[in-house]
Protein backbone atom coordinates (compact mmCIF):
# COMPACT_ATOMS: atom_id res chain seq x y z
CA UNK A 1 0.00 0.00 0.00
CA UNK A 2 1.11 3.51 -0.64
CA UNK A 3 -0.33 6.78 0.47
CA UNK A 4 -0.68 9.04 -2.51
CA UNK A 5 -1.79 12.05 -0.56
CA UNK A 6 0.80 14.71 0.16
CA UNK A 7 2.06 14.63 3.73
CA UNK A 8 1.73 18.39 3.78
CA UNK A 9 2.24 21.32 1.49
CA UNK A 10 5.77 21.42 0.18
CA UNK A 11 7.56 24.74 0.29
CA UNK A 12 8.35 25.66 -3.29
CA UNK A 13 11.60 27.59 -3.48
CA UNK A 14 11.86 30.83 -5.40
CA UNK A 15 13.95 29.84 -8.37
CA UNK A 16 14.02 33.38 -9.69
CA UNK A 17 13.14 34.82 -13.06
CA UNK A 18 15.02 33.78 -16.17
CA UNK A 19 16.22 36.51 -18.53
CA UNK A 20 14.68 36.88 -21.98
CA UNK A 21 17.85 35.54 -23.49
CA UNK A 22 17.55 32.34 -21.45
CA UNK A 23 13.82 31.95 -22.05
CA UNK A 24 14.27 32.50 -25.77
CA UNK A 25 17.32 30.25 -25.85
CA UNK A 26 19.59 32.89 -27.34
CA UNK A 27 22.83 31.91 -28.99
CA UNK A 28 24.79 32.78 -25.88
CA UNK A 29 23.44 34.29 -22.69
CA UNK A 30 26.32 35.88 -20.86
CA UNK A 31 24.24 36.51 -17.73
CA UNK A 32 23.39 32.84 -17.40
CA UNK A 33 26.91 31.74 -18.26
CA UNK A 34 28.34 33.91 -15.51
CA UNK A 35 25.71 33.05 -12.92
CA UNK A 36 26.05 29.31 -13.61
CA UNK A 37 29.81 29.37 -14.00
CA UNK A 38 30.53 27.92 -10.59
CA UNK A 39 27.99 25.09 -10.88
CA UNK A 40 27.72 24.24 -14.58
CA UNK A 41 31.12 25.10 -16.02
CA UNK A 42 33.86 25.30 -13.45
CA UNK A 43 33.55 21.78 -11.94
CA UNK A 44 33.43 20.07 -15.36
CA UNK A 45 36.35 22.20 -16.51
CA UNK A 46 38.39 21.09 -13.53
CA UNK A 47 37.45 17.44 -13.93
CA UNK A 48 38.21 17.72 -17.64
CA UNK A 49 41.69 19.03 -16.92
CA UNK A 50 42.24 16.27 -14.36
CA UNK A 51 41.03 13.61 -16.80
CA UNK A 52 43.32 14.89 -19.55
CA UNK A 53 46.27 15.30 -17.22
CA UNK A 54 45.94 11.77 -15.89
CA UNK A 55 45.50 10.28 -19.36
CA UNK A 56 48.38 12.15 -20.94
CA UNK A 57 50.67 11.49 -17.97
CA UNK A 58 50.00 7.77 -17.91
CA UNK A 59 50.04 7.61 -21.70
CA UNK A 60 53.35 9.40 -21.68
CA UNK A 61 54.92 7.07 -19.15
CA UNK A 62 53.78 3.96 -21.02
CA UNK A 63 54.53 5.23 -24.51
CA UNK A 64 57.84 6.71 -23.44
CA UNK A 65 58.92 3.40 -21.94
CA UNK A 66 57.73 1.54 -25.02
CA UNK A 67 59.52 4.05 -27.23
CA UNK A 68 62.80 3.54 -25.38
CA UNK A 69 62.36 -0.20 -25.52
CA UNK A 70 61.62 -0.17 -29.24
CA UNK A 71 64.59 2.11 -29.79
CA UNK A 72 66.94 -0.26 -28.02
CA UNK A 73 65.36 -3.42 -29.42
CA UNK A 74 64.50 -2.46 -32.96
CA UNK A 75 62.53 -5.60 -33.67
CA UNK A 76 59.97 -4.56 -31.08
CA UNK A 77 59.16 -1.31 -32.87
CA UNK A 78 56.92 -3.04 -35.42
CA UNK A 79 54.74 -5.06 -33.03
CA UNK A 80 54.43 -2.23 -30.48
CA UNK A 81 53.60 0.26 -33.20
CA UNK A 82 50.96 -2.03 -34.65
CA UNK A 83 49.35 -2.65 -31.29
CA UNK A 84 49.29 1.07 -30.48
CA UNK A 85 47.95 1.91 -33.92
CA UNK A 86 45.21 -0.65 -33.47
CA UNK A 87 44.16 0.99 -30.20
CA UNK A 88 44.24 4.36 -31.88
CA UNK A 89 41.98 3.31 -34.73
CA UNK A 90 39.22 2.08 -32.43
CA UNK A 91 36.33 4.52 -32.38
CA UNK A 92 36.31 6.05 -28.88
CA UNK A 93 32.68 5.17 -28.30
CA UNK A 94 33.28 1.57 -29.31
CA UNK A 95 36.21 1.38 -26.94
CA UNK A 96 34.11 2.68 -24.06
CA UNK A 97 31.54 0.09 -24.99
CA UNK A 98 34.12 -2.69 -24.89
CA UNK A 99 35.48 -1.60 -21.55
CA UNK A 100 32.27 -0.97 -19.61
CA UNK A 101 31.57 -4.67 -18.97
CA UNK A 102 34.97 -4.97 -17.30
CA UNK A 103 35.60 -1.67 -15.65
CA UNK A 104 32.07 -0.32 -15.31
CA UNK A 105 30.83 3.21 -15.73
CA UNK A 106 33.89 4.60 -14.06
CA UNK A 107 36.71 7.04 -14.43
CA UNK A 108 38.93 4.00 -14.90
CA UNK A 109 37.06 3.12 -18.09
CA UNK A 110 37.51 6.64 -19.37
CA UNK A 111 41.19 6.82 -18.51
CA UNK A 112 41.95 3.45 -20.09
CA UNK A 113 40.31 4.57 -23.30
CA UNK A 114 41.96 7.99 -23.29
CA UNK A 115 45.36 6.50 -22.59
CA UNK A 116 44.89 4.10 -25.51
CA UNK A 117 44.51 7.03 -27.89
CA UNK A 118 47.63 8.83 -26.71
CA UNK A 119 49.92 5.81 -26.99
CA UNK A 120 50.72 5.67 -30.68
CA UNK A 121 51.22 9.42 -30.93
CA UNK A 122 53.67 9.64 -28.06
CA UNK A 123 55.32 6.32 -28.93
CA UNK A 124 56.04 7.46 -32.45
CA UNK A 125 57.17 10.87 -31.30
CA UNK A 126 59.69 9.28 -28.94
CA UNK A 127 60.88 6.81 -31.55
CA UNK A 128 61.12 9.41 -34.33
CA UNK A 129 62.87 11.80 -31.98
CA UNK A 130 65.45 9.25 -30.89
CA UNK A 131 65.98 7.91 -34.39
CA UNK A 132 66.42 11.44 -35.65
CA UNK A 133 69.52 12.04 -33.54
CA UNK A 134 72.28 12.56 -36.14
CA UNK A 135 74.66 9.62 -36.45
CA UNK A 136 77.74 11.76 -36.20
CA UNK A 137 76.52 13.21 -32.92
CA UNK A 138 75.86 9.76 -31.53
CA UNK A 139 79.25 8.52 -32.77
CA UNK A 140 81.06 11.51 -31.33
CA UNK A 141 79.34 11.00 -27.98
CA UNK A 142 80.18 7.32 -27.88
CA UNK A 143 83.70 7.93 -29.08
CA UNK A 144 84.27 10.43 -26.29
CA UNK A 145 83.39 7.82 -23.72
CA UNK A 146 79.77 8.49 -22.77
CA UNK A 147 78.16 5.28 -21.52
CA UNK A 148 74.73 4.13 -22.67
CA UNK A 149 72.81 6.05 -20.04
CA UNK A 150 74.87 9.19 -20.48
CA UNK A 151 74.33 8.93 -24.22
CA UNK A 152 70.59 8.56 -23.66
CA UNK A 153 70.09 11.25 -21.06
CA UNK A 154 72.72 13.77 -22.12
CA UNK A 155 72.41 13.46 -25.87
CA UNK A 156 69.65 11.35 -27.35
CA UNK A 157 66.69 12.36 -25.19
CA UNK A 158 67.45 16.09 -25.24
CA UNK A 159 67.75 15.97 -29.00
CA UNK A 160 64.52 13.97 -29.23
CA UNK A 161 62.70 16.55 -27.09
CA UNK A 162 61.31 18.71 -29.89
CA UNK A 163 59.73 15.63 -31.44
CA UNK A 164 58.50 14.31 -28.09
CA UNK A 165 56.96 17.66 -27.24
CA UNK A 166 55.15 17.91 -30.56
CA UNK A 167 53.83 14.42 -29.88
CA UNK A 168 52.67 15.51 -26.45
CA UNK A 169 50.96 18.54 -27.95
CA UNK A 170 49.02 16.46 -30.43
CA UNK A 171 48.16 13.87 -27.79
CA UNK A 172 46.99 16.55 -25.37
CA UNK A 173 44.79 18.39 -27.85
CA UNK A 174 43.33 15.10 -29.03
CA UNK A 175 42.67 13.99 -25.47
CA UNK A 176 40.95 17.27 -24.58
CA UNK A 177 38.63 16.62 -27.47
CA UNK A 178 38.05 12.89 -26.89
CA UNK A 179 37.54 13.47 -23.17
CA UNK A 180 34.28 15.27 -23.96
CA UNK A 181 32.92 11.87 -25.03
CA UNK A 182 33.76 10.56 -21.58
CA UNK A 183 30.46 12.04 -20.44
CA UNK A 184 28.80 8.96 -21.93
CA UNK A 185 30.47 6.96 -19.20
CA UNK A 186 30.90 9.30 -16.25
CA UNK A 187 29.22 12.55 -15.37
CA UNK A 188 32.52 14.38 -15.57
CA UNK A 189 34.31 16.71 -17.89
CA UNK A 190 33.07 19.33 -20.30
CA UNK A 191 31.21 16.72 -22.29
CA UNK A 192 28.71 16.42 -19.48
CA UNK A 193 27.16 19.89 -19.83
CA UNK A 194 27.41 19.54 -23.61
CA UNK A 195 25.46 16.30 -23.71
CA UNK A 196 22.86 17.58 -21.29
CA UNK A 197 22.48 20.78 -23.26
CA UNK A 198 22.11 18.95 -26.54
CA UNK A 199 19.31 16.69 -25.35
CA UNK A 200 17.38 19.71 -24.10
CA UNK A 201 18.63 22.18 -26.60
CA UNK A 202 20.09 25.06 -24.67
CA UNK A 203 22.60 27.00 -26.64
CA UNK A 204 24.43 28.82 -23.88
CA UNK A 205 25.31 25.60 -22.14
CA UNK A 206 26.77 23.74 -25.08
CA UNK A 207 28.29 26.80 -26.69
CA UNK A 208 29.87 27.71 -23.37
CA UNK A 209 31.15 24.24 -22.58
CA UNK A 210 32.27 23.69 -26.18
CA UNK A 211 34.14 26.98 -26.18
CA UNK A 212 35.78 26.05 -22.90
CA UNK A 213 36.96 22.77 -24.43
CA UNK A 214 38.45 24.62 -27.37
CA UNK A 215 40.08 27.22 -25.13
CA UNK A 216 41.42 24.48 -22.90
CA UNK A 217 42.99 22.74 -25.89
CA UNK A 218 44.61 26.00 -26.98
CA UNK A 219 45.78 26.78 -23.47
CA UNK A 220 47.34 23.37 -22.87
CA UNK A 221 48.92 23.44 -26.32
CA UNK A 222 50.33 26.87 -25.56
CA UNK A 223 51.73 25.68 -22.25
CA UNK A 224 53.47 22.80 -23.98
CA UNK A 225 54.90 25.14 -26.59
CA UNK A 226 56.27 27.28 -23.78
CA UNK A 227 57.62 24.22 -22.02
CA UNK A 228 59.29 23.21 -25.27
CA UNK A 229 60.91 26.63 -25.62
CA UNK A 230 62.25 26.47 -22.11
CA UNK A 231 63.54 22.93 -22.52
CA UNK A 232 65.03 23.31 -26.01
CA UNK A 233 66.67 26.74 -26.15
CA UNK A 234 69.02 25.61 -28.90
CA UNK A 235 66.23 25.21 -31.43
CA UNK A 236 65.73 28.99 -31.40
CA UNK A 237 69.43 29.75 -31.73
CA UNK A 238 70.50 30.58 -35.27
CA UNK A 239 73.46 32.57 -36.41
Amino acid at each position, binding site marked *: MSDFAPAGDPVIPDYGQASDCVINNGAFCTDWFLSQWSTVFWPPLVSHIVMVAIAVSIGFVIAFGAGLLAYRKKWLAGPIGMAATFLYTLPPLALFQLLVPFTGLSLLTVEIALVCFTLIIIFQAVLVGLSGVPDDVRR*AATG*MGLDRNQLLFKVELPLALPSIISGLRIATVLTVSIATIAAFVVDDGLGSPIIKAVSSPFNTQFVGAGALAVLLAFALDGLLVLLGRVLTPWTKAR*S
Partner: protein
Amino acid sequence: MTQHSTGTSITFDRATKTYPGAAVPALDALDLEVEAGELVCLVGPSGGGKTTALQLVNRLVDLTSGDIRIGDRSITDQSAIALRRTIGYAIQQSGLFPHYTVADNIATVPVVLGWDKARIRTRTAELLELVGLSPVETWLPRYPAQLSGGQQQRVGIARALAADPPVMLMDEPFGALDPITRVAVQDEFLAIHRAVGKTTLFVTHDIDEAIKMADRIAILKPGGKLAQFDTPANVLSDPADDFVAEFLGAERGLKRLALTTVGEIVTAGTTGAKAATTDGARPSTTGWPDVEATMTLREALSVVSAARADGAIVHSDGSRLGEVSLHDLIAPPAAGEDREGVRA
Protein backbone atom coordinates in the same frame (compact mmCIF):
# COMPACT_ATOMS: atom_id res chain seq x y z
CA MET B 1 97.28 15.33 -16.04
CA THR B 2 99.35 18.28 -17.10
CA GLN B 3 98.24 20.73 -19.67
CA HIS B 4 100.67 19.55 -22.33
CA SER B 5 101.11 15.93 -21.58
CA THR B 6 103.46 14.40 -24.05
CA GLY B 7 101.93 11.96 -26.44
CA THR B 8 102.02 8.24 -26.17
CA SER B 9 102.74 5.82 -28.96
CA ILE B 10 100.02 3.80 -30.67
CA THR B 11 100.98 0.34 -31.82
CA PHE B 12 98.91 -1.80 -34.18
CA ASP B 13 99.98 -5.39 -33.75
CA ARG B 14 98.53 -7.56 -36.52
CA ALA B 15 95.28 -5.72 -35.94
CA THR B 16 92.55 -7.43 -37.91
CA LYS B 17 88.87 -6.69 -38.30
CA THR B 18 86.44 -8.84 -40.23
CA TYR B 19 82.85 -7.60 -40.08
CA PRO B 20 80.19 -10.26 -39.55
CA GLY B 21 79.10 -11.70 -42.87
CA ALA B 22 82.00 -10.15 -44.78
CA ALA B 23 84.14 -12.46 -46.92
CA VAL B 24 87.33 -10.44 -46.60
CA PRO B 25 88.70 -8.48 -43.66
CA ALA B 26 88.15 -4.75 -43.55
CA LEU B 27 91.57 -4.49 -41.97
CA ASP B 28 94.07 -7.24 -42.45
CA ALA B 29 96.85 -7.80 -39.92
CA LEU B 30 97.89 -4.17 -39.72
CA ASP B 31 101.27 -3.56 -38.18
CA LEU B 32 101.86 0.10 -37.55
CA GLU B 33 103.66 2.10 -34.95
CA VAL B 34 102.71 5.71 -34.43
CA GLU B 35 105.43 7.28 -32.36
CA ALA B 36 104.72 9.54 -29.43
CA GLY B 37 103.85 13.02 -30.65
CA GLU B 38 103.72 11.95 -34.26
CA LEU B 39 100.91 12.83 -36.68
CA VAL B 40 100.14 9.92 -38.96
CA CYS B 41 97.61 10.16 -41.73
CA LEU B 42 95.70 7.09 -42.77
CA VAL B 43 94.79 7.35 -46.42
CA GLY B 44 93.43 5.02 -49.03
CA PRO B 45 90.42 4.40 -51.19
CA SER B 46 87.00 3.57 -49.79
CA GLY B 47 87.10 0.03 -48.50
CA GLY B 48 90.71 0.35 -47.50
CA GLY B 49 89.75 0.11 -43.86
CA LYS B 50 91.17 3.46 -42.75
CA THR B 51 88.15 4.44 -40.66
CA THR B 52 87.96 0.91 -39.30
CA ALA B 53 91.58 1.16 -38.21
CA LEU B 54 90.81 4.41 -36.41
CA GLN B 55 87.68 3.12 -34.70
CA LEU B 56 89.50 0.02 -33.53
CA VAL B 57 91.68 2.26 -31.41
CA ASN B 58 88.85 3.68 -29.33
CA ARG B 59 86.90 0.44 -29.59
CA LEU B 60 83.95 1.83 -31.49
CA VAL B 61 84.77 -1.30 -33.47
CA ASP B 62 86.07 -4.45 -31.78
CA LEU B 63 89.18 -6.25 -32.95
CA THR B 64 88.69 -9.63 -34.55
CA SER B 65 92.28 -10.57 -33.81
CA GLY B 66 95.58 -8.97 -33.03
CA ASP B 67 96.10 -6.14 -30.59
CA ILE B 68 96.45 -2.41 -30.33
CA ARG B 69 98.51 -0.78 -27.61
CA ILE B 70 98.58 2.77 -26.40
CA GLY B 71 101.96 3.14 -24.80
CA ASP B 72 102.54 -0.27 -23.28
CA ARG B 73 98.97 -0.90 -22.48
CA SER B 74 96.56 -2.93 -24.58
CA ILE B 75 93.33 -1.14 -25.34
CA THR B 76 91.47 -4.16 -23.99
CA ASP B 77 93.02 -3.72 -20.53
CA GLN B 78 90.30 -1.33 -19.48
CA SER B 79 86.66 -0.79 -20.27
CA ALA B 80 85.84 0.79 -23.60
CA ILE B 81 84.21 3.71 -21.79
CA ALA B 82 87.27 4.43 -19.64
CA LEU B 83 89.55 4.00 -22.64
CA ARG B 84 87.59 6.45 -24.76
CA ARG B 85 87.80 9.11 -22.08
CA THR B 86 91.58 9.10 -22.50
CA ILE B 87 91.42 9.53 -26.25
CA GLY B 88 90.53 12.73 -28.05
CA TYR B 89 88.05 12.13 -30.84
CA ALA B 90 87.09 14.53 -33.60
CA ILE B 91 84.97 13.66 -36.61
CA GLN B 92 83.63 15.11 -39.82
CA GLN B 93 80.84 17.67 -39.40
CA SER B 94 82.38 18.18 -35.97
CA GLY B 95 79.80 15.91 -34.27
CA LEU B 96 79.10 18.77 -31.87
CA PHE B 97 76.01 18.36 -29.70
CA PRO B 98 73.47 20.79 -31.13
CA HIS B 99 71.77 21.19 -27.75
CA TYR B 100 74.94 22.11 -25.90
CA THR B 101 76.58 25.50 -25.93
CA VAL B 102 80.19 25.76 -27.03
CA ALA B 103 81.17 25.74 -23.36
CA ASP B 104 79.12 22.62 -22.59
CA ASN B 105 80.38 20.83 -25.70
CA ILE B 106 83.97 21.37 -24.75
CA ALA B 107 83.25 20.38 -21.15
CA THR B 108 81.62 17.06 -22.09
CA VAL B 109 84.45 14.73 -21.13
CA PRO B 110 85.71 16.79 -18.16
CA VAL B 111 82.16 16.69 -16.78
CA VAL B 112 81.86 12.92 -17.04
CA LEU B 113 85.31 12.68 -15.51
CA GLY B 114 84.04 14.71 -12.58
CA TRP B 115 86.27 17.75 -12.84
CA ASP B 116 85.26 20.66 -10.64
CA LYS B 117 83.58 23.64 -12.23
CA ALA B 118 86.41 26.09 -11.87
CA ARG B 119 88.85 23.74 -13.51
CA ILE B 120 86.43 23.10 -16.36
CA ARG B 121 85.91 26.83 -16.85
CA THR B 122 89.59 27.56 -16.97
CA ARG B 123 90.26 24.68 -19.32
CA THR B 124 87.44 25.64 -21.66
CA ALA B 125 88.65 29.20 -21.95
CA GLU B 126 92.21 28.07 -22.53
CA LEU B 127 91.14 25.71 -25.32
CA LEU B 128 89.02 28.32 -27.07
CA GLU B 129 92.03 30.61 -27.09
CA LEU B 130 94.13 27.78 -28.43
CA VAL B 131 91.80 27.15 -31.37
CA GLY B 132 91.58 30.87 -32.07
CA LEU B 133 88.08 31.62 -30.88
CA SER B 134 88.51 34.72 -28.79
CA PRO B 135 87.37 36.64 -26.93
CA VAL B 136 86.12 33.47 -25.32
CA GLU B 137 83.11 35.15 -23.66
CA THR B 138 81.66 35.73 -27.11
CA TRP B 139 81.81 32.08 -28.03
CA LEU B 140 81.08 30.18 -24.81
CA PRO B 141 77.30 30.71 -24.74
CA ARG B 142 76.72 30.07 -28.44
CA TYR B 143 75.09 26.97 -29.87
CA PRO B 144 76.72 25.08 -32.74
CA ALA B 145 73.99 26.28 -35.12
CA GLN B 146 75.27 29.81 -34.51
CA LEU B 147 78.77 28.94 -35.74
CA SER B 148 80.25 28.63 -39.22
CA GLY B 149 81.55 25.24 -40.35
CA GLY B 150 85.13 26.25 -39.61
CA GLN B 151 84.24 27.54 -36.17
CA GLN B 152 82.37 24.33 -35.42
CA GLN B 153 85.41 22.32 -36.42
CA ARG B 154 87.63 24.42 -34.18
CA VAL B 155 85.26 23.77 -31.27
CA GLY B 156 85.29 20.07 -32.21
CA ILE B 157 89.06 20.05 -31.89
CA ALA B 158 88.92 21.95 -28.61
CA ARG B 159 86.42 19.40 -27.33
CA ALA B 160 88.66 16.50 -28.36
CA LEU B 161 91.54 18.12 -26.50
CA ALA B 162 89.49 18.98 -23.42
CA ALA B 163 90.65 16.28 -21.03
CA ASP B 164 94.21 16.60 -22.35
CA PRO B 165 94.33 13.11 -23.81
CA PRO B 166 97.73 11.79 -24.89
CA VAL B 167 96.21 10.44 -28.09
CA MET B 168 93.95 12.05 -30.70
CA LEU B 169 91.87 10.28 -33.29
CA MET B 170 90.58 12.42 -36.12
CA ASP B 171 88.19 10.99 -38.68
CA GLU B 172 88.17 13.22 -41.75
CA PRO B 173 87.68 16.17 -39.45
CA PHE B 174 87.93 18.79 -42.20
CA GLY B 175 86.14 16.80 -44.88
CA ALA B 176 83.05 18.97 -44.97
CA LEU B 177 84.72 22.36 -45.04
CA ASP B 178 85.02 24.61 -48.08
CA PRO B 179 88.56 24.75 -49.51
CA ILE B 180 89.51 28.15 -48.10
CA THR B 181 88.28 27.42 -44.58
CA ARG B 182 89.83 24.04 -44.81
CA VAL B 183 93.31 25.37 -45.47
CA ALA B 184 93.00 27.80 -42.58
CA VAL B 185 91.81 25.14 -40.15
CA GLN B 186 94.55 22.76 -41.31
CA ASP B 187 97.19 25.39 -40.63
CA GLU B 188 95.75 26.10 -37.21
CA PHE B 189 95.55 22.46 -36.36
CA LEU B 190 99.15 21.92 -37.41
CA ALA B 191 100.20 24.78 -35.18
CA ILE B 192 98.22 23.32 -32.29
CA HIS B 193 99.64 19.90 -32.95
CA ARG B 194 103.14 21.25 -32.85
CA ALA B 195 102.34 23.14 -29.66
CA VAL B 196 100.67 20.32 -27.71
CA GLY B 197 102.40 17.26 -29.19
CA LYS B 198 99.52 14.83 -29.14
CA THR B 199 100.07 11.55 -30.88
CA THR B 200 97.52 11.87 -33.67
CA LEU B 201 95.98 9.37 -36.01
CA PHE B 202 94.26 11.26 -38.79
CA VAL B 203 92.03 9.70 -41.42
CA THR B 204 91.57 11.54 -44.68
CA HIS B 205 90.63 10.64 -48.22
CA ASP B 206 92.45 13.71 -49.46
CA ILE B 207 96.04 12.87 -50.32
CA ASP B 208 96.99 16.55 -50.49
CA GLU B 209 95.77 17.01 -46.94
CA ALA B 210 97.79 13.99 -45.86
CA ILE B 211 100.92 15.32 -47.55
CA LYS B 212 100.47 18.67 -45.90
CA MET B 213 99.65 17.42 -42.39
CA ALA B 214 101.39 14.13 -41.85
CA ASP B 215 104.75 13.28 -40.41
CA ARG B 216 104.19 9.88 -41.92
CA ILE B 217 101.48 8.54 -44.19
CA ALA B 218 100.01 5.07 -43.99
CA ILE B 219 98.42 4.05 -47.27
CA LEU B 220 95.88 1.27 -47.05
CA LYS B 221 94.61 -0.62 -50.05
CA PRO B 222 91.38 -2.58 -50.62
CA GLY B 223 91.26 -5.63 -48.40
CA GLY B 224 92.64 -3.60 -45.53
CA LYS B 225 96.30 -4.19 -46.27
CA LEU B 226 99.01 -1.66 -45.56
CA ALA B 227 100.60 -0.67 -48.86
CA GLN B 228 103.18 1.79 -47.60
CA PHE B 229 104.08 3.65 -44.41
CA ASP B 230 106.61 6.39 -44.80
CA THR B 231 107.22 10.14 -44.80
CA PRO B 232 105.31 12.16 -47.40
CA ALA B 233 108.53 12.86 -49.28
CA ASN B 234 109.51 9.23 -49.47
CA VAL B 235 106.03 8.12 -50.40
CA LEU B 236 105.96 10.64 -53.21
CA SER B 237 109.45 10.04 -54.47
CA ASP B 238 109.46 6.32 -54.00
CA PRO B 239 105.99 4.69 -54.10
CA ALA B 240 106.15 1.15 -52.81
CA ASP B 241 104.07 -0.33 -55.61
CA ASP B 242 101.83 0.44 -58.55
CA PHE B 243 98.82 0.78 -56.28
CA VAL B 244 100.47 3.57 -54.29
CA ALA B 245 101.75 5.26 -57.43
CA GLU B 246 98.33 5.17 -58.96
CA PHE B 247 96.71 6.34 -55.74
CA LEU B 248 99.07 9.32 -55.59
CA GLY B 249 98.14 10.11 -59.16
CA ALA B 250 99.79 11.63 -62.17
CA GLU B 251 100.58 14.83 -60.26
CA ARG B 252 102.74 13.01 -57.78
CA GLY B 253 105.74 15.10 -58.81
CA LEU B 254 103.87 18.32 -58.33
CA LYS B 255 102.52 17.20 -54.96
CA ARG B 256 106.09 16.65 -53.88
CA LEU B 257 106.84 20.27 -54.58
CA ALA B 258 104.24 21.15 -52.01
CA LEU B 259 106.45 19.74 -49.29
CA THR B 260 109.05 22.50 -49.57
CA THR B 261 108.71 26.24 -49.18
CA VAL B 262 110.47 28.76 -51.30
CA GLY B 263 112.18 30.08 -48.20
CA GLU B 264 113.78 26.72 -47.59
CA ILE B 265 115.55 26.62 -50.96
CA VAL B 266 116.50 30.27 -50.85
CA THR B 267 118.20 29.88 -47.52
CA ALA B 268 119.70 26.62 -48.75
CA GLY B 269 121.75 28.84 -51.03
CA THR B 270 120.63 27.55 -54.40
CA THR B 271 119.39 30.86 -55.63
CA GLY B 272 119.48 32.05 -59.16
CA ALA B 273 121.66 34.99 -58.10
CA LYS B 274 124.39 32.80 -56.71
CA ALA B 275 124.30 30.55 -59.73
CA ALA B 276 124.80 33.61 -61.87
CA THR B 277 127.95 34.71 -60.08
CA THR B 278 129.56 31.30 -60.42
CA ASP B 279 128.63 31.12 -64.08
CA GLY B 280 129.69 34.68 -64.65
CA ALA B 281 126.65 35.14 -66.83
CA ARG B 282 124.00 36.64 -64.62
CA PRO B 283 120.55 36.08 -66.12
CA SER B 284 118.13 38.94 -66.18
CA THR B 285 115.51 38.95 -63.42
CA THR B 286 113.44 41.45 -65.29
CA GLY B 287 109.75 40.54 -65.21
CA TRP B 288 110.18 37.97 -62.46
CA PRO B 289 107.19 37.96 -60.11
CA ASP B 290 107.45 38.34 -56.36
CA VAL B 291 106.76 35.33 -54.12
CA GLU B 292 106.61 34.96 -50.35
CA ALA B 293 109.17 32.76 -48.62
CA THR B 294 106.31 30.81 -46.98
CA MET B 295 104.88 29.68 -50.32
CA THR B 296 105.38 26.08 -51.30
CA LEU B 297 107.41 25.41 -54.41
CA ARG B 298 104.20 24.23 -56.05
CA GLU B 299 102.50 27.55 -55.36
CA ALA B 300 105.56 29.55 -56.47
CA LEU B 301 105.71 27.51 -59.66
CA SER B 302 102.14 28.40 -60.33
CA VAL B 303 102.94 32.12 -59.89
CA VAL B 304 106.00 31.89 -62.15
CA SER B 305 104.06 30.01 -64.79
CA ALA B 306 101.28 32.57 -64.71
CA ALA B 307 103.85 35.36 -65.20
CA ARG B 308 105.54 33.44 -68.08
CA ALA B 309 108.85 34.13 -66.31
CA ASP B 310 111.99 32.05 -65.71
CA GLY B 311 112.07 32.58 -61.95
CA ALA B 312 110.77 34.61 -59.01
CA ILE B 313 112.02 37.10 -56.47
CA VAL B 314 111.60 35.88 -52.88
CA HIS B 315 110.42 38.17 -50.13
CA SER B 316 109.93 37.70 -46.45
CA ASP B 317 108.36 40.32 -44.19
CA GLY B 318 108.77 42.88 -46.94
CA SER B 319 112.51 42.38 -47.40
CA ARG B 320 114.09 40.69 -50.39
CA LEU B 321 115.71 37.35 -49.60
CA GLY B 322 116.92 36.49 -53.07
CA GLU B 323 115.71 34.81 -56.25
CA VAL B 324 114.72 31.32 -57.33
CA SER B 325 114.92 30.14 -60.91
CA LEU B 326 112.41 27.96 -62.67
CA HIS B 327 114.92 25.14 -62.51
CA ASP B 328 115.32 25.52 -58.76
CA LEU B 329 111.59 25.27 -58.37
CA ILE B 330 111.03 22.12 -60.37
CA ALA B 331 114.16 20.25 -59.27
CA PRO B 332 114.85 21.24 -55.72
CA PRO B 333 117.71 19.45 -54.04
CA ALA B 334 116.48 17.07 -51.38
CA ALA B 335 113.15 18.81 -51.15
CA GLY B 336 111.42 18.04 -47.89
CA GLU B 337 114.10 15.60 -46.81
CA ASP B 338 114.86 17.48 -43.65
CA ARG B 339 111.18 17.61 -42.84
CA GLU B 340 111.64 15.47 -39.79
CA GLY B 341 113.76 18.21 -38.33
CA VAL B 342 111.02 20.69 -38.85
CA ARG B 343 108.62 18.72 -36.75
CA ALA B 344 108.01 20.08 -33.32
